[in-house]
């Protein structure tokens, strides 16, 4: 669905090293216009460095980059005119009020006085900040600061928006609000480059996901494509009677039994075809099954399989997204 659109961001062979330490080791990225691309990885993978390079903050050591149709090396100002950046550390002026912060952005985007005031009021309204407009951001909650930050980014009507861990440290409710705002932007045709350490966030928002680890992209694709990359999908049959379990274990070669739980795991990629085959076998052998669940691997599994260790985010978010099960 996205492949035939022109690229909003195209980077090849991106390299960056600080002294001896290689941060980005030749990464390639293509982000189609009007889509959400998520760069997913643990702390220190190189996500922020990538955003800093693509948003003209720092220079890459090597590689060619084009953002919103402008070559970054030749026309950095062209790039700057088309992008907006919101980082995990809020870039607001703490001594100005929320409204003054937005008006400052309007001035820097060279909007005339009237237009600047109009856009400011509109953005305050949109992000539910009208009541807090006259207060300094130091009085704001973390979520309000992040919303003001995003509102400031939107003042210039950017075509491409970089969101560097936009929801890190936010409570789940505010995170949902940010997600809604991001979806609205995409609906309006904006291209989003999102970095996150939350697997769930990438899963929710991104059209395409790239997994970054130690400065290299270890996998790229849609959420489903990535999940298919790894084994781990299985059907789990639950029984009431040990005898039924015995019989089922004999019927399905390659299955693993869990006597304590009276359950049997059958490897499966979860498609309807193999599911029907299993059900047919159960029918023929007249085995009574209490319940059946389909387990598809989630991005956690993908990360673990591709990097050999769990994503740090997975530990952080433990309990929030335990295991994804689809009961059919």
């Amino acid at each position, binding site marked *: 669905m996205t492949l035939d659109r022109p690229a909003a961001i195209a980077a090849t062979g991106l390299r960056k090293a600080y002294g001896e330490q290689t941060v980005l080791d030749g990464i390639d990225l293509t982000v189609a216009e009007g889509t959400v691309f998520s760069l997913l990885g643990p702390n220190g993978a190189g996500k922020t460095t990538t955003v800093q390079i693509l948003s003209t903050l720092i220079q890459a050591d090597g590689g060619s980059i084009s953002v919103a149709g402008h070559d970054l090396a030749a026309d950095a*100002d062209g790039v700057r005119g088309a992008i907006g*950046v919101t*980082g995990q550390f809020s870039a607001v002026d703490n001594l100005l009020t929320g409204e003054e912060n937005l008006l400052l952005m309007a001035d820097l985007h060279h909007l005339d006085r009237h237009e600047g005031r109009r856009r400011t009021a509109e953005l305050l309204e949109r992000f539910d900040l009208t009541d807090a407009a006259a207060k300094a951001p130091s009085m704001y909650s973390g979520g309000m600061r992040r919303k003001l930050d995003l509102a400031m980014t939107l003042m210039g009507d950017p075509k491409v928006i970089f969101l560097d861990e936009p929801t890190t440290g936010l409570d789940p409710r505010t995170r949902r609000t940010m997600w809604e705002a991001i979806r609205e932007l995409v609906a309006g045709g904006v291209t989003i480059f999102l970095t996150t350490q939350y697997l769930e966030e990438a899963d929710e928002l991104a059209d395409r996901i790239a997994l970054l680890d130690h400065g290299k992209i270890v996998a790229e694709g849609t959420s489903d494509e990535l999940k298919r990359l790894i084994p781990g999908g299985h059907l789990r049959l639950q029984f009431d009677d040990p005898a039924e379990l015995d019989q089922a274990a004999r019927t399905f070669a390659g299955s693993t039994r869990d006597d304590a739980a009276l359950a049997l795991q059958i490897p499966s990629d979860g498609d309807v075809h193999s599911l029907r085959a299993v059900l047919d076998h159960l029918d023929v052998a007249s085995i009574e099954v209490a319940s059946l669940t389909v387990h598809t691997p989630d991005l956690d599994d993908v990360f673990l399989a591709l990097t050999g260790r769990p994503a740090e985010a997975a530990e952080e978010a433990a309990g929030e997204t335990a295991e994804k099960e689809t009961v059919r």
Partner: protein
Amino acid sequence: MSTLALAARDSRTMLRRNMRRWVRYPAMTVQLIGIPVIFLLMFAYVFGETLGAGLGGPSGDRADYINYLVPGIILMTVSASVQGTAISVAMDMHEGIIARFRTMAISRGAVLTGHVIGSFLQTLVGLVIVTGVAFLIGFRTNGNVAEWIAAIGLICLFSIALTWLAVAMGLKAKSVETASNLPTLLVLLPFLGSGFVPTDSLPAGMSWFAEYQPFSPVIETVRGLLLGTEIGTNAVLALAWTAAIGLFGYVWALRLFRRPPVR
């Protein structure tokens, strides 16, 4: 709009932002203007009698010393003020908003120009207050209008030069807490020069340093213009130092500003 007009517009926007920040955070301004006023009053009334006698002037009293003291205090006002510049630049660099400015299509130098002009205006306010206090406690000048204009001109140029240096120091600082360390030297320099006592009254080694360090020729030139003492080569030296400091500070600041952000 032309590039130059855009740069001017962005600089004005940044200046407005800085002025607003001064208003919101007046404690620093008050402190920076308070320091030279306190030193003026302390040296005039606590040490003035003795130091006046040591000068060997016409009457050799406190009134003589106040006249001698004021040009040094004026320069101290400038260096105290640019200390504030370094702190506010460092605050900016660590607040993340500079990173936002860098990703926007605005004039590159506008952020720094805004700081320099804002600080300069603040220094002017400080100078007016300090000079006013000086007149109140008995500072008397025999300079004519042309000499006053020349003195004000030199002080302004020297302020702008020091402000650029302070901007660079603020950019160089690893944290807001350490931003005032380097500029503190600037506040001390009037002491290690001809600001409070004549340089030939200092110990041999220090006297040589005091004679040639940048503040002394500026102080001596201002003193000559306002009080009629001999200026000699000091005017040329003062202008040379001003140009050198200004150029060095400007180039250093721009270099540091182009550097990748702290985080």
